[in-house]
C-alpha cells in the first residue's frame, strides 16, 4: 500500500510496484491508509511522513499492529536526516528520500519482501511439530524447512545421513505434520530383521498355507494404510526383495507371502539410508529404477560435528529427560563438561551423545553438577589427545608427560584398532575388493564388514593405495 497525499508520487510509485509484479492499494490520507490496512492484508506499506491528517512516523506503530503486520517503509523529504533517523528508530523497515531514482525506490521494497518471506518461513517452522528435534543451527533450520515442505506433499522421501543423526525423528516429524498424522506411523527396520523374515514382515503372509484356516497375517505396508511407513536402512534389502518392493511402490498393492490376492494400501513412504545408494546402484547392489523412485524428495541430514552450535541445546534437552527418567533432580553443567562436549567430534552423532550423557548422569548420581570427568573415558581421552597433538612433549612438565602416557586400556584399544584396520585392508585387497568374497573368507556378515570399514574409514576402492 502506498500512503501519500501527492497524487503524482502515488501514481508513479504504483506503476513501479505493479511492474515488479505486486498488487497495490493507495491512500491519499493517513486515516484511509489505516482503514485499508485493517480490512486488507499488506506485506509492505510505503508511508509518507507529512500527510494532511497526521504524521506518518507517529502512526507507524498503528500500521505495524494490524493483523498482517506489514513492513513499513517511510518516505521522507529530501535531506531530512532527522526524519530518517526517527523512522528507523521507530521500527520502520527502511526509508526513502523523495524524489528517488528507480533503484533507490525498488531496492528497499525487494529487501522488505525477501525479509518478510524469510520471516514467514521461520514462523512456519515455529508451528511445526518437531518432537525430539532440538537446535537452532542454519543446518537444522534447512532440515525443518524440508519437513515443512515434505509434510504437505505425498511424494516418496529419501533421508540420507550417518547413524544417529536423527533420520527417524525427521521421518516422524514429516508424518506428524501431514494429513496422515491420525493414522499409523510404522517403522520397518531392515537391518534388525533377518533377511528371511523381511518379506513376510513387510508384506504379510498366510499364516499356514496348508491349513483350512489360512488366515493372512498383515504386513507393515498394510498396517501403514492411510499412514506413513519408514523403511530404515533400505540398503539391507536383497535384490530379489527390491524387485517386489518396486512393484509395490508402482501399484500400491501388496501380496502377502503365500497368498494369491493383492491387498491395496495407501501408504506414504519415507526411506532412510546411511549408505551411498548411488554408489550401490553403480556396483549393482541396489536397483537403479528403485533408487529413482525413492528420491522424489531427498534430504541429507548433517552429522552433529557439522552443527556444533546445537550440541549444548541437545545435551540440555536430553539431560532434563534423563534426570526425569532416573528420578533425580536436574543437574547443572560445569564449564569443563561443556568444553568436552563441544570439543569431541561425536562420530556416532546424537545417539552417541545421548549414550555419553546417560553414562555421565549415572556416574554423577549424587552430584548436582556434571563435570568433564563424569563423561566416558574414551570421550575424554579423545578430546585430550586432540588438544595435545601439536604440543612438543619436551615442553611439558613430567606430570604433564605422565598424563599423556597412554593407560594399558588405551594402548590395548589402539593396538587392536590398528590390527583390525590392517586386517580389513588386507582382506579387501585379497578378495579383489569384493564384499561378498571378503565376507566368505572372513566369516563376517556384510553389515559387520561395512561397520568395520566405516569405523576405520576404509574406502574399498582405495584399498590398494592403503596397502603397506
Amino acid at each position, binding site marked *: 500500500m502506498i500512503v501519500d497525499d501527492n497524487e503524482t508520487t502515488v501514481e508513479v510509485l504504483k506503476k513501479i510496484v505493479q511492474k515488479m509484479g505486486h498488487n497495490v492499494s493507495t491512500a491519499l490520507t493517513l486515516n484511509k491508509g489505516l482503514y485499508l490496512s485493517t480490512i486488507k492484508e499488506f506485506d509492505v506499506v510505503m508511508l509518507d511522513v507529512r500527510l494532511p491528517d497526521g504524521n506518518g512516523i507517529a502512526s507507524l506503530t498503528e500500521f505495524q499492529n494490524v493483523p498482517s503486520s506489514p513492513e513499513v517503509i517511510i518516505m521522507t523529504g529530501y535531506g531530512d536526516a532527522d526524519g530518517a533517523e526517527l523512522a528507523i528508530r521507530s521500527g520502520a523497515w527502511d526509508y526513502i528520500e523523495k524524489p528517488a531514482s528507480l533503484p533507490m525506490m525498488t531496492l528497499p521494497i525487494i529487501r522488505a519482501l525477501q525479509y518478510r518471506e524469510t520471516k514467514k518461513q521461520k514462523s512456519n517452522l515455529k508451528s511445526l511439530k518437531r518432537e*525430539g528435534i532440538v537446535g537452532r543451527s542454519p543446518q537444522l533450520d534447512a532440515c525443518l524447512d524440508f519437513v515443512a515442505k515434505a509434510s504437505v506433499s505425498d511424494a516418496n522421501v529419501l533421508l540420507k545421513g550417518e547413524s544417529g543423526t536423527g533420520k*527417524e525423528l525427521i521421518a*516422524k516429524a514429516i508424518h506428524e505434520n501431514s494429513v496422515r498424522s491420525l493414522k*499409523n*506411523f*510404522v*517403522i520397518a*527396520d531392515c*537391518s*534388525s*530383521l*533377518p533377511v*528371511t*523374515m523381511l518379506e513376510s*514382515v513387510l508384506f504379510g503372509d498366510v499364516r499356514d498355507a496348508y491349513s483350512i484356516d489360512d488366515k493372512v*497375517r*498383515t504386513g*507393515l505396508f498394510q*498396517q501403514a494404510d492411510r499412514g506413513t511407513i519408514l523403511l530404515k536402512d533400505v540398503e539391507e534389502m536383497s535384490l530379489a526383495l527390491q524387485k517386489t518392493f518396486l512393484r509395490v511402490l508402482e501399484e500400491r498393492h501388496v501380496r502377502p507371502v503365500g497368498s494369491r490376492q493383492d491387498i491395496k494400501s495407501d501408504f506414504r513412504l519415507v526411506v532412510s539410508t546411511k549408505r551411498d545408494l548411488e554408489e550401490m546402484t553403480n556396483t549393482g547392489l541396489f536397483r537403479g529404477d528403485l533408487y529413482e523412485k525413492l528420491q522424489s524428495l531427498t534430504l541429507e541430514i548433517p552429522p552433529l560435528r557439522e552443527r556444533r552450535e546445537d550440541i549444548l541445546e541437545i545435551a540440555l534437552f536430553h539431560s532434563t*529427560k534423563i534426570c526425569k*527418567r*532416573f*528420578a533425580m533432580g536436574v543437574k547443572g553443567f560445569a564449564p569443563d563438561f561443556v568444553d568436552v562436549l563441544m570439543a569431541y567430534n561425536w562420530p556416532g552423532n546424537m*545417539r552417541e551423545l*545421548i*549414550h555419553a550423557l*546417560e*553414562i555421565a*548422569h*549415572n556416574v554423577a548420581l549424587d552430584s548436582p553438577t556434571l563435570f568433564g570427568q563424569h563423561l566416558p573415558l574414551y570421550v575424554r581421552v579423545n578430546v585430550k589427545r586432540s588438544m595435545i597433538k601439536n604440543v612438543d612433549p619436551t615442553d611439558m612438565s613430567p606430570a604433564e608427560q605422565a598424563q599423556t602416557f597412554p593407560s594399558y586400556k588405551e594402548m590395548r584399544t589402539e593396538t587392536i584398532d590398528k590390527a583390525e584396520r590392517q586386517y580389513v585392508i588386507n582382506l579387501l585387497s585379497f578378495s579383489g575388493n569384493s564384499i561378498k568374497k571378503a565376507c566368505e573368507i572372513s566369516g563376517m*556378515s556384510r*553389515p*559387520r564388514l561395512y561397520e568395520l570399514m566405516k569405523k576405520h574409514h576404509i574406502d574399498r576402492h582405495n584399498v590398494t593405495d592403503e596397502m603397506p
Partner: protein
Amino acid sequence: MKVILYIAKDHREGQKLQSAVEKIIPKHLLVVFNMITALSQGLRGPLSDTVLVLCPSCKEDVRELVALRELIQGVRTIIVLPDDERETVAIGHRFQPRFLTMSTPDFKDVSKVLGKMLHLRD
C-alpha cells in the same frame, strides 16, 4: 547389550517367550519384569544399550504400557501383541518398535530378530 523383558504376569505363553529369550541372552544381561509398576522402576537407568521386549497379555495391558512411552523413547523395542485387531496394532505402533508381532506358539520370530539385533551390536 542388555535386554529388558516384560511379560505380563497373566500371559498364557509368557514362560515360552522367556525360555526363547533365555536361549540367546546370557542371564546376567537379561532382566525380566512381570508387572508394569516394576518395569517402570527398572527403566530408571541407562537404556541406550538396551533392547526392550514387551509382551502384554491384553489390550488393556498394551494401553497401560503406553504410559511408559516417554521413558522408553529411543529405546530399541520389540513388541509382542496379544491380538492383531486394528486398534491393538495401532497402539503397538505408538512404541515405534523395531519389530511388532503377535504371540506365536514358539516365539521363533522374536528369537530371530533379537538374535540379529545382538549380532549387530557385537
